[in-house]
């Protein structure tokens, strides 16, 4: 249902655009007759409603139309090609972000007001305030342009080896994961501080349990519950940064496809990309909701 509404919206919003893709396409040809012919060929001369029904029908069959440029590659092919890149990048960024955020958040909470705590807080602020694409450029300047440790652009599929794949993704993933990491670290810190004050932690401490056991077994899982609530928001941020970062590192993932599509006024491609991006986002939010019930048995769906 949501999917259908989103799809409809995506379709009509883009059709409402004053600019005509063919105008852009035939800019140098400048022949109205040729434009008319092309318009007929692509079905752009039919009434909007007919176009819409046709588009929905095809969409249900997984057909998102073809790019209006060049060899008219089907949109689904472009997206299927782009997806693994975006997913690789997003997953790696997520892993790096969580890997940094959880320990940082815990340490900051356990040593409240220590130097480490202040340093983490400041770093989190910096991470949230830094434009992702600028961080990406800084990383390129340092690690690619000057130290020559890692490549500055491009993508290699994992099938050609894990290291080449990873090598191309480390810098983009760090750039994409930083803001995400900052949000999560701050959330973990504040919710750990809440949890540490509770009775059951006092009891665990009174029982003489080891500090690490208390932190990792008793405090952390409970502290993660509120963190999960901001996950959806954090993922929105991660998707946004992924779109931008792909463009900086010339990774032909969904984000690059989307932006290129907009710059070229390639409607079918833009529609397809937006559709898939929002589907992923809806799916992730659903996952977060489910995860929520798993991690906190007190919550049940009615």
């Amino acid at each position, binding site marked *: 249902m*949501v999917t259908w509404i989103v799809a409809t*919206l995506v379709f009509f919003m883009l059709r409402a655009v004053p600019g005509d893709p063919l105008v852009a396409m035939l800019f140098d040809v400048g022949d109205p007759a040729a434009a008319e012919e092309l318009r007929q060929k692509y079905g752009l001369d039919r009434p909007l409603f007919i176009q819409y029904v046709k588009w929905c029908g095809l969409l249900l069959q997984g057909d998102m139309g073809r790019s209006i440029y060049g060899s008219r590659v089907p949109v689904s092919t472009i997206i299927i090609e782009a997806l693994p890149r975006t997913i690789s990048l997003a997953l790696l960024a997520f892993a790096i972000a969580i890997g940094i955020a959880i320990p940082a958040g815990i340490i900051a909470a356990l040593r409240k007001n220590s130097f480490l705590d202040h340093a983490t807080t400041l770093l989190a602020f910096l991470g949230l305030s*830094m*434009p992702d694409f600028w961080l990406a450029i*800084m990383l390129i300047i340092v690690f690619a342009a000057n130290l020559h440790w890692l490549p500055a652009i491009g993508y290699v599929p994992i099938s050609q080896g894990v290291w080449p794949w990873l090598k191309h993704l480390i810098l983009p993933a760090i750039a994409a994961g930083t803001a995400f990491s900052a949000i999560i670290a701050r959330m973990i810190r504040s919710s750990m501080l809440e949890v540490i004050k509770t009775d059951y932690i006092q009891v665990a401490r009174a029982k003489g349990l080891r500090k690490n056991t208390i932190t990792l077994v008793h405090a952390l899982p409970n502290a993660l519950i509120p963190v999960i609530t*901001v996950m959806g928001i*954090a993922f929105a941020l991660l998707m*946004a940064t992924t779109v931008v970062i792909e463009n900086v590192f010339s990774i032909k993932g969904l984000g690059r496809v989307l932006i290129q599509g*907009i710059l070229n006024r390639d409607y079918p491609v833009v529609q397809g990309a937006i559709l898939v991006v*929002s589907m992923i986002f809806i799916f992730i939010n659903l996952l977060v909701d489910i995860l929520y019930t798993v991690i906190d048995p007190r919550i049940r769906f009615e």
Partner: protein
Amino acid sequence: MQLATDDASRVDSPEDVSLLRRSRWTDWWLTVMHDKKALAGLVILAVFVFMGLFAPLIAPYDPNDMEYEMLAPPSRSHLLGTDDLGRDLLSRIIHGTRISFFIGFTTVALALVSGVFLGLTAGYYGGWRDHLIMRYIDLQWAFPNFIIAVYMVAVFGTGIFNLTIAISLAYVDDFARLARGMVLTIKQEPYVMAARAMGASNTRIMGTYVLPNATAPLIVQATVSVSYAILAEAALSFLGLGVESTTPTWGLILAEGRSFISRAWWVGVFPGLAIMLTVLSINFLGDALRDFMDVRETQDLM
């Protein structure tokens, strides 16, 4: 927002609000003075606002003047160096302040006004209005904010006006959701019921009792949104979806300098630094504001 400031004229308010307000502003001022982060934020922000307001007077050169040495490193005559077309980087960055701040504040003002209007209507009246508005908010919730902005630019086209509309539309749902939640709580308060019992009109109840009591979280949300809007504008400009290329904006300066970063680090470093400092200062202030107004942390991350 306005209602909060001219409370002084309203003698029949339940408490002497004018007195309360003034002392709160003094409190706020004292808090800022004691909080190092907030103070730093205020100072940095003031510097940038000053730079933006008096850009033509402060900038040492014309930002579009191309008559200097190309890609000259920072020196005494060009403090931050020059770009690939021989334009003075410092002057361009100073002029870029204007667009960033204009877009940052205008978009949030627009989103705030329309979001609060929607949220207030939905929460206060309930019924079909609530259903309709909530469906809209849910729909927007299905897309990450930045993706909405990107899509809106695809629909409306680029340029400063369209960009403002696109970014503010992306943030409307945040404010609407927040305002609705606040209204639903405040509606139950005894003073609202008392006002209704005394025959106050709906508009009067909303304006006098509901809205002023909902300002704190809205102000915090607005502050955070300004920082996100500035980042979003920079990212859109960077991707080529921003303001016309004749206007220097921070994102655009970075995009133009991107190809030269291996030879000229300054074109990559300084514009981003300006963005980061601005956003950081706003985040510092927002954080102090949140502590001061005692707003829960979870509702404002994006």
